């Protein structure tokens, strides 16, 4: 592990109440990484939508299942992984919510918002054991320069809520 990498890992019970817990952790991690308030809110929203997907669509709102989150602060970016125990989905099969014919659809904007707010987004099917979403938000060169002299102490938390 790169000595300048900070890692936070959390395992949460698959319950909608824990979406706000994930949001709170995200705000703190994104703030620590150096993102400004607007960017923190966008990252928080991407995590919110991913948590909803994991709990509601992946784990089918089954509270005996769990959602695992990992936040990795690197010199130039924040990487977030969210893993559920569901059957997965193909993000390419989601209709474009900006098409005129879909504009008044009630659902189908979650993935679009994640893609809008993050720089990278990918979905991996874990051979029938779950689905892992990886999202990346890059730090601007200005923030990297500002934080460049500071070596980050490695820390890892693993908690279940």
């Amino acid at each position: 592990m790169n000595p300048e990498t900070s890692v936070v890992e959390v395992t949460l019970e698959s319950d909608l109440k824990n979406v706000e817990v994930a949001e709170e952790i995200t705000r703190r991690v994104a703030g620590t990484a150096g993102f400004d308030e607007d960017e923190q809110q966008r990252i928080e929203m991407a995590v919110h939508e991913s948590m909803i997907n994991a709990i509601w669509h992946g784990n089918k709102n089954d509270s005996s299942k769990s959602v695992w989150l990992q936040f990795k602060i690197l010199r130039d970016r924040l990487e977030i992984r969210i893993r559920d125990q569901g059957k997965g989905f193909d993000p390419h099969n989601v209709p474009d919510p900006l098409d005129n014919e879909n504009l008044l659809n009630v659902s189908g904007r979650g993935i679009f918002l994640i893609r809008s707010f993050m720089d990278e987004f990918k979905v991996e099917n874990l051979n029938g054991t779950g689905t892992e979403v990886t999202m990346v938000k890059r730090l601007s060169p200005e923030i990297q320069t500002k934080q460049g002299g500071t070596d980050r102490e490695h820390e890892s938390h693993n908690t279940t809520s």
Partner: protein
Amino acid sequence: MSMKATIRQVDSVTVVDISGRITLGEGCTQLRELIRDQLGKGNKNLLLNLADVTYIDSSGIGELVSAYTGVSKQGGALKLLNLTKKVHDLLQITKLYTVFDVHDDEASAIASFSKPASA
């Protein structure tokens, strides 16, 4: 904080002051029931004041769309008032800002209900 709503009548318009979170689960359910309830009472001119909405997610946006189409189908009108920057930005990137009739002044929003909709 979950969603809270207070309802007041101004002329022929039902103004709903919403605060808190409109998200999947409780917030969306409350909004859906509120709209259904108002339509059931024959209140078809609805102005949603979103000034104190702290959070809205993709499901909340979907619920606003559902409310808009539901009210329109009943021959009424649903308009939005006092969007926060967050909600404004979300409606912009989802291209819904042009769908909703959005106001930032309550008096002009109320007045707009008595004007015929532009073609």
